[in-house]
C-alpha cells in the first residue's frame, strides 16, 4: 500500500510539474532563509556555554543609578576591584582580570602591533580553551610567559610547536612561550567582544613605558579599564551578593566630589553565557536584533509555507475523484489522510533538501553580509538538520492536513458527482492577503531603511570628513614624546594644510564623559554630564570645525596645555585650565551666546575651575542615532593617540608617501597605521547599510516567493474556471473581459493586504526611526508606491495565465472535463 501511495505521489508530482517546481522552489527558498537565520540566532545565543564552569562564571559590571539619568553599566572596572572581591567575599572562589595592551614586535623586518591580554594566572582554569602544548594550570604562573593560539604561533614561528620559543618585542623584552591553544571557537566572548590571541601574566613587564602606568593602577579605584571575572563557589546564588556591593565599593572608593548624594554606585554580576546577548556599550548582539532576525525569518518562511499549503490544497481539490474511487474500493479515512500527508511530506522533504543545498551555497555570503564569523562546525550536517527539519515537518504536515481531512470527509457519492468546485477559495484568498501583507511591510521597511541610511551618511557632521588623513598609535611613550616633532614635520610637507593630534577622531566610539557645573550653583543641582575630548593645538582646525567665538588652543599660549594628571591633582594653585566649548555645551550650561560664553568659568568634577577661551560648532562624534552631544575640548598632552592631517585639494600620492616617510623616520619603532577620515566615518554606518542590504534581500525573496505562489494559484484558477470562461465567451465576453475578471480576482487580496500592511509598517518603522536623533520623515508616497508595486507584480504574474485561457476558443473550454 505504501508503495502504491509513493507511486501515486511521485507521478502526481511529475504530472503537475509546474506546481511541483513552484511549490518546491518557494518552500526551499523559505526554508533556506529560515535555516540561515536560525543558525545565526542559535550561534549568537550559545556563547561560552562550553566552559565546564560556565554556570559559575560572572563578569563584574559597574553600575551607577542616579535619579533623572539613565542607569549606566560599564564592562570595565578598576584594577584593585578583583583582588578585593576575592578577599572580602567568601563566596568568590577565584577571580581573573583581563587588561589589554598593544605590544610592538618586528615581524619580517617591519614593526607590527599586536594585542596581548594581561590576565591573572587562573585564566585557563576558568575558561576551557584546549591546549595543544603546555599546561593550562601553570602556563601563566610567572611573569614573562606567553600563551598563544596556534595561528599566532604559526604566524610568528612558522609552527604551532612553539613552546619554549621567545617572542621578542621591540622594547627588548622577550616573552617565553609556555602554551599553545587551539584557535578560539567563534562563539566565545574572547573571539568577538574581547578578541584575544596572546595571553601573558598580569605582572609581566614590557619595558615600553607602560609598566609604571599599569603598576600605578594597583590602588586606583576610580580608573576603570580592566575586565574582571569571578568564579563563584558551587551553589552560590549571585543575587545574595548584590546587597553587599554598594558598601564594599563605598569602603574603598572615595566618593566623587560634589556628586549628588542620591547616586548609587554598585556592582552587578553578569552571567558569562548571557554576555553576548546582553550588550553593554553597544557591543554584542542585542535581543532586539535577534528578535528582528527571528521575525523576518518567520515572515519569509511563513510566506513560503502559506504558498505550499495554498498550492497543495488547491491542487488536491482536483483529486476529489481519486479519493472517491479509493473510498468506493474500501479505503478508510485514516488511510487517505496518511496518503495525502505522505505526498505532502515527500515534497516538503525534497524542498528541505534543496533548501540545504541553498544554505550551503549562500551561508558564507549571508555571514559576509552580517560581517560575522561562525565556526564550520555550526554549518555541518547535524546542525543544519536541526535547523531545517522542524519547518520541513511542519510544512509537510500542514500542507497535507487540509486535503487529508477535508477531502476524506465527504461520502464518496458527493465526490463522484464530478470535479468539485475547489473548496477553501476564501481561505486561500485570505492566505494570499497575509502573504502580501508581509511582503508589503518588508518592502516599506526596506525603502525606509535605505532612505534613513542615505540620509544619515549625508548628514552634516559639523566637520569636513573628506580630505583628511588619520595616523594612529601615538599612545605610547615614544609616540607621545614625538608628537610635536611629528606635527612640525608633517606641517612642512607640501599638500598638507593643517595638522593636529587628539585622543580620538569622530566615530571612534570613545566615551569619556565628566561632570561639570557652573560656579555658585546650589549643591542640589545635578551636575551636567558632558563629553570630554582631549585634543592638541591644531586639531580642531585640521578637523575643519568652524570657530564661533574666542580662540582655539594655540602653541603661543603654553598655559593652554594641561594633562589628565594635572587636572586630577587639584593641587590648589587654582590656575584655571583653558577649554573650548561646543555650541551645544554653551546652550546646556545656559551661557547665552557664543561670544558671551568666552571668558566664563566652568567647574570640573565639582571644584576644578576651567576657563572658556573659545566656542566651536557642534561635532557629531557618534552617529546619526544620537544628537550633537555637548562637548568640552581640553588640550591634554598625555592623552593623545592620533594625528589628524588635513590635505590640500591638490594633494596626491606623493603627499601620502611623504606622510608615511615622515612617520617612519621619526617613529621607527612604531607601526604606521594610516587611514582616511571619511573611510573611517563610513564604517559607522556600515552596520546600518548592511542591515538595510539584508532587509532588501529578504523583502525581495519574500515577494519572489509570494509571486511563485500567486503564479501557481493563477494557473490553477485559470484551469479550474476553463468551462466557466468558455461559457462566458459563448455568451459574448471578450478576451479583455475575461482577463479583467481573473486579474480582479487576485487584485482583491493584494488590495486588502495594503490596508493591513500600511498601518503596521507605519507603526514598526516609526518606532525604528525613533532610535535616530536625525531621521527622515515617513512618506505616505512610499507606502502607496510599495502597495502599487505589489499590485503590479501580482497583475504581471496573473495576466499571462488569464490571457492564455481567455484567448482559447470557447469550444475547447467547453469540451474540457
Amino acid at each position: 500500500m505504501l508503495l502504491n501511495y509513493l507511486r501515486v505521489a511521485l507521478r502526481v508530482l511529475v504530472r503537475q510539474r509546474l506546481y511541483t517546481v513552484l511549490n518546491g522552489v518557494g518552500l526551499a527558498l523559505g526554508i533556506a532563509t529560515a535555516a540561515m537565520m536560525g543558525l545565526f540566532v542559535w550561534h549568537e545565543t550559545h556563547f561560552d556555554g562550553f566552559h565546564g564552569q560556565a554556570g559559575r562564571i560572572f563578569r563584574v559590571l559597574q553600575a551607577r543609578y542616579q535619579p533623572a539619568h539613565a542607569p549606566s553599566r560599564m564592562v570595565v572596572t578598576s584594577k584593585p576591584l578583583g583582588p578585593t572581591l576575592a578577599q572580602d567575599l567568601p563566596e568568590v572562589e577565584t577571580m581573573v582580570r583581563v587588561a589589554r595592551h598593544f605590544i610592538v614586535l618586528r615581524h619580517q623586518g617591519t614593526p607590527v602591533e599586536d594585542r596581548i591580554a594581561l590576565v591573572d594566572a587562573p585564566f585557563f582554569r576558568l575558561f576551557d580553551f584546549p591546549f595543544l602544548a603546555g599546561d593550562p594550570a601553570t602556563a601563566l604562573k610567572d611573569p614573562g610567559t606567553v600563551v598563544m593560539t596556534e595561528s599566532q604561533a604559526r604566524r610568528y614561528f612558522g609552527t604551532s610547536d612553539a613552546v619554549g620559543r621567545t617572542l621578542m618585542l621591540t622594547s627588548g623584552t622577550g616573552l617565553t612561550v609556555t602554551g599553545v591553544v587551539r584557535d578560539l571557537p567563534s562563539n566565545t566572548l574572547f573571539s568577538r567582544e574581547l578578541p584575544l590571541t596572546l595571553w601573558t601574566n598580569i605582572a609581566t613587564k614590557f619595558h615600553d613605558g607602560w609598566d609604571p602606568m599599569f603598576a600605578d593602577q594597583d590602588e586606583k579605584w576610580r580608573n576603570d579599564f580592566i575586565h574582571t571575572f569571578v568564579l563563584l563557589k558551587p551553589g552560590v546564588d549571585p543575587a545574595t551578593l548584590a546587597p553587599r556591593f554598594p558598601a564594599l565599593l563605598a569602603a574603598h572608593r572615595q566618593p566623587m566630589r560634589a556628586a549628588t548624594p542620591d547616586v548609587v554606585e554598585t556592582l552587578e554580576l553578569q552571567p558569562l553565557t548571557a554576555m553576548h546577548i546582553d550588550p553593554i556599550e553597544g557591543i554584542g548582539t542585542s535581543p532586539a536584533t535577534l528578535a528582528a532576525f527571528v521575525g523576518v525569518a518567520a515572515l519569509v518562511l511563513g510566506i513560503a509555507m502559506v504558498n505550499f499549503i495554498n498550492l497543495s490544497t488547491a491542487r488536491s481539490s482536483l483529486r476529489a475523484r481519486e479519493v472517491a474511487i479509493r473510498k468506493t474500493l474500501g479505503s478508510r479515512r485514516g488511510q487517505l489522510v496518511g496518503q495525502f500527508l505522505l505526498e505532502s511530506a515527500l515534497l516538503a522533504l525534497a524542498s528541505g533538501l534543496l533548501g540545504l543545498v541553498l544554505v550551503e551555497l549562500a551561508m558564507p555570503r549571508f555571514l559576509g553580509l552580517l560581517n560575522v564569523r561562525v565556526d564550520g562546525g555550526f554549518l555541518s550536517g547535524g546542525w543544519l538538520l536541526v535547523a531545517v527539519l522542524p519547518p520541513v515537518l511542519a510544512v509537510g504536515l500542514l500542507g497535507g492536513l487540509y486535503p487529508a481531512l477535508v477531502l476524506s470527509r465527504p461520502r464518496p457519492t458527493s465526490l463522484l458527482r464530478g470535479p468539485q468546485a475547489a473548496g477553501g477559495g476564501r481561505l486561500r484568498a485570505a492566505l494570499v492577503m497575509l502573504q502580501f501583507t508581509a511582503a508589503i511591510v518588508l518592502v516599506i521597511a526596506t525603502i525606509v531603511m535605505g532612505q534613513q541610511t542615505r540620509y544619515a551618511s549625508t548628514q552634516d557632521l559639523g566637520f569636513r570628513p573628506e580630505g583628511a588623513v588619520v595616523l594612529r598609535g601615538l599612545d605610547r611613550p615614544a609616540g607621545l614624546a614625538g608628537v610635536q616633532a611629528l606635527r612640525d614635520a608633517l606641517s612642512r610637507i607640501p599638500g598638507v594644510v593643517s595638522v593636529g593630534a587628539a585622543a580620538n577622531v569622530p566615530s571612534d566610539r570613545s566615551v569619556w564623559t565628566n561632570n561639570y557645573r557652573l560656579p555658585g550653583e546650589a549643591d542640589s543641582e545635578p551636575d551636567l554630564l558632558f563629553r570630554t575630548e582631549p585634543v592638541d593645538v591644531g586639531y580642531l582646525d585640521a578637523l575643519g570645525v568652524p570657530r564661533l567665538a574666542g580662540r582655539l588652543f594655540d602653541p603661543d599660549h603654553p598655559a593652554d596645555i594641561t594633562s589628565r594628571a594635572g587636572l586630577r591633582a587639584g593641587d590648589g594653585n587654582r590656575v584655571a585650565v583653558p577649554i573650548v566649548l561646543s555650541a551645544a555645551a554653551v546652550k546646556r550650561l545656559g551661557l547665552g551666546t557664543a561670544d558671551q560664553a568666552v571668558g566664563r568659568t566652568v567647574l570640573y568634577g565639582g571644584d576644578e575651575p576651567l576657563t572658556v577661551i573659545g566656542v566651536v560648532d557642534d561635532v557629531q562624534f557618534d552617529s546619526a542615532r544620537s544628537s550633537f552631544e555637548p562637548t568640552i575640548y581640553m588640550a591634554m598632552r598625555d592623552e593623545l593617540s592620533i594625528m589628524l592631517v588635513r590635505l590640500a585639494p591638490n594633494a596626491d600620492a606623493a603627499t601620502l608617501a611623504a606622510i608615511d616617510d615622515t612617520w617612519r623616520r621619526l617613529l621607527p619603532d612604531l607601526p604606521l597605521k594610516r587611514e582616511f577620515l571619511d573611510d573611517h566615518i563610513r564604517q559607522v554606518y556600515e552596520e546600518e547599510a548592511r542591515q538595510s542590504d539584508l532587509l532588501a534581500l529578504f523583502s525581495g525573496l519574500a515577494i519572489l516567493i509570494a509571486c511563485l505562489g500567486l503564479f501557481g494559484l493563477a494557473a490553477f484558477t485559470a484551469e479550474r474556471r476553463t468551462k466557466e470562461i468558455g461559457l462566458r465567451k459563448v455568451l459574448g465576453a471578450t478576451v479583455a473581459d475575461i482577463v479583467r475578471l481573473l486579474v480582479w480576482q487576485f487584485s482583491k487580496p493584494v488590495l486588502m493586504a495594503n490596508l493591513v500592511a500600511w498601518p503596521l509598517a507605519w507603526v514598526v518603522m516609526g518606532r525604528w526611526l525613533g532610535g535616530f536623533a536625525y531621521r527622515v520623515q515617513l512618506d505616505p508616497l512610499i507606502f502607496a508606491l510599495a502597495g502599487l508595486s505589489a499590485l503590479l507584480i501580482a497583475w504581471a504574474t496573473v495576466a499571462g495565465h488569464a490571457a492564455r485561457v481567455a484567448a482559447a476558443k470557447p469550444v475547447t473550454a467547453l469540451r474540457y472535463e
Partner: protein
Amino acid sequence: MLKLVDLTKVYRTEEVETTALNQVNIHIKQGEFVAIMGPSGCGKSSLLNIVGMLDNPSSGQYWFGDEEVAGYGERRLADIRKKNIGFIFQSFNLIDELTVFENVELALLYHDIPSRERKERVKEALAKVNIAHRESHLPQQLSGGQQQRVAIARAVVSRPRMLLADEPTGNLDSANGEEVMNMLTELNGEGTTIVMVTHSMPHAQYARRIINLFDGQVVAENLRAA
C-alpha cells in the same frame, strides 16, 4: 441477497427539499441480474448509491443478507462494501496517475492480500476482460471501451458477490457497449449478482428483471423469460 423496505431518500438544501426515493420496496436475490430504468431524475442513481452503501437512506430499511445496514456509519459500510460490492461507472473513474495494472490492483490493496496472489488475480482479471496487453498503459492512453474494460476488471478482481453498474455503456459506442454487456452477462452466469442502471432498452434486455422507476417510486417490474 438484499431487501429494501419502505426506503426513502430526501435531499435537503436550504431552500428546497427533493424526494429522490419514495417508499421503495425491492428484493434482489443472490445471482440475479437486475436492470433499473427510468427517465433522468427518477432516482436511479440515488438508489444505486444506497444499494452500493455509498450513501445512507433518509428512512426505511436496507437489509443486506441478514444485516440491517441503513443506520451504519461510514466505517462499517466501507467494510461491508469492500468485501461484497464492486462498482462500474459511466465515466470509468480510473485514477489517471496509475497504470492499468495498478488501477486494478488498487481494489485488492485494501484487502490485505499477499502481493503474489494480488498480482495473479490482477492478471487473471485483465485477461478476462481482454486488456492484459495494455497493463502498463495509463488510462488516458486507452480508448473509452478499453477504459471501461479496465474498470470492469477492477470491479471484479476482488470477487464481489454483487456488481453495481451505473450506465456502464453510456459513454461507449454500440460495439463496445455490446462487448461490455456480454461481459456482465458472463459474470452473472458465474454467480455474481448484478444491478445495473441504464437508459438503453436493448442493454436492459440482458437483465433477467427490469425495474422501472418514476419520481422516486417503483412503477413497474418486468420479469424477462430466461
